[in-house]
Structure formats: C-alpha cells, structure tokens
C-alpha cells in the first residue's frame, strides 16, 4: 500500500529532525524520548495494524488506528495549549521591552534638549 510507504517515510523524516533538534540542544532528552515513542508507535500501527488492535481493545477502543487518532488529538490539543500560553508570554515580554524603550527614549531626548 502506497499510503504506508508515505507514512513510514514521513516518520523517518520526523524522527531524524527530532534527533537533529536534540543534538543541537533545542529540545530536552525527555522531549526526544516522548516524541520517539510517539512516532515509533505510529510506525508500528502502520506496519502491523492487526496486532495493535489487541492493545486498543484492552483500553476499550475497537481498532489500533482509532486509538492512535484519539491519542494524537489529545497530544495536539496539549501542544496547541502550550504554544498559546508561550505566545502570550512572548507577547507580554515584547510589550515590556517596547514600553521600556518608549519611556527611556523620551527621557533621553528630554535630557539631550536640556
């Protein structure tokens, strides 16, 4: 199946990027482990879907593929939440910097014209 090849190629790509990010110290070892587990399980579910069904049934989901979709959505929401909070923090920091600069600039100009 072509879709399987695409998914596996994509996973290899993402995993390599994750590892590069880790080596460049952009992400922590915990993040590396979590993402590796996540993407590996996607790979397993892609390659041997039947066997993952057993695991899914243990937690009350019919198919392994479905379980993966549920987990993905939860992970996505969590990541979006983190990004939104982080953006808000960055925007507050920028505000602080711009405000400080604006007030200082005014003071500087006043002193200069004195």
């Amino acid at each position: 199946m072509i879709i399987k090849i695409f998914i596996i190629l994509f996973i290899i790509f993402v995993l390599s990027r994750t590892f590069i990010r880790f080596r460049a110290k952009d992400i922590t070892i915990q993040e590396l482990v979590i993402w590796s587990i996540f993407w590996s399980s996607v790979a397993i579910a892609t390659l041997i879907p039947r066997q993952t069904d057993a695991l899914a049934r243990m937690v009350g989901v019919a198919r392994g593929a479905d379980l993966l979709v549920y987990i993905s959505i939860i992970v996505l929401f969590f990541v979006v939440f983190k990004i939104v909070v982080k953006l808000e923090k960055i925007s507050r920091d920028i505000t602080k910097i711009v405000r400080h600069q604006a007030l200082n600039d005014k003071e500087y100009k006043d002193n200069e014209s004195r």
Partner: protein
Amino acid sequence: MRIWVVIPAYNEASIIGRVIKDLKAGVENIVVVNDGSTDDTAMAATASGAVVISHMINLGQGAALQTGIDFALKNEADIIITFDGDGQHQVGDIENVIKPLILGEVDVVLGSRFLVSSSQVPTLRRLLLRFATLVTKIYTGLVVTDTHNGFRAFSKYAAEKIEIRQNGMAHASEIIEQIKRQNLKFKEVPITIRYTAYSLAKGQHLGDSFKIFWDLIIGRISR
C-alpha cells in the same frame, strides 16, 4: 493638582492635531502614545504641543494606555484622564469626568454615552456595546452601562493599582475587572460621543468582539 491626559493613537495623523488643540484649551499636560503608527501621527501631535511617546511597533490600545499611564505617574500626575484620539470625545465633558475625583468621592470615573440622551448612537453599535456590557457583567459581576468607552479618569491611587495586561481592545473589560478586584470605588458619568464617519470607520466592529472574548479567555489561562 496635576492632571495628565493620555491619548493612545494609532494612525490618527489627520485628526490628532485638532483633538490636541481642543484639549489645550482645558488642560495643560497631554501625552500622546503613538502606538507604532505608520503615518505622521507623532509629528502632528508634537506640532500641536503634546508630549509624544512612541512605541517602536504597534502593540494595541491597551498597551498604549498603560505606557501613557506609566509616563503620567512618573510625571507626578494626581489625576489621569484617558481620551480617544479620533475626535469622538468632547473637551467640555472633562470637567464632569474629573469632578468626582477632585471631590474625593471615587477612585475611577468611567464615561458613559448611554447615560445621556444627546449621544446619537447608531443602532448596530448600540447593540454591540450592549452585548459587551452583558459580557462584562457576567465576567466581572459589575454593572457598567458602557464598558468600551475610552473616556475615563483615574486617581493616582487607582492608576498605580491598575495594571493593564490586555494589549488589545479587551483592556476595557480588564479595567472593569481590576476595579472590582482592587476594590476601587468608581462612578459613571454621562459623556457625549460625537460620531463621525472617521470615528466609525476606526471604531470597533462585530468581529472585534470575538477577538476580545478570545483574548479574555487566553488572559485567564495564561496569567
């Protein structure tokens, strides 16, 4: 008693000069916070005799107000008035707005266009503002007739207590929330809004209310 007028301005070059000239007749200290305008707002404001502080980039009205308030407090303000830069507020109303502060009755005075019959508020805008009032009531529990009115006055005490963290238009609801949280005494006084094609075009629209709602929610979870 030193009174400072704070005017947040974003691309108001065509009208800010006139607004300042009108204000000069009644008040001495005017600070325009040029919020990263891409036109000649700063030049026009300086030429009209206001103190101008410029944000490097556009942050939003809430951020501009806080910068102006910081500046006024640094410059020994006893009373801080916030005033719109688009010409919709009347200089003649200032006296009524600051009177309760001078008398020491309250800490914050909020202008309300709905307490006076001479404001001709367009229907759609009236509905939008009523809705904002309802949201504010649910959000803060305070009944204010006109939440999104930029004409306000703060005592030094109130200005030091209130910290506007909402950079965008949600600051209006945030101010009410902080009045409540900081236990500040407030009063609404009637003011007249003069709607012009210019102020209506620059004013808020329906889509903005969704953004305000979103900003308030995000502000809550990331505090």
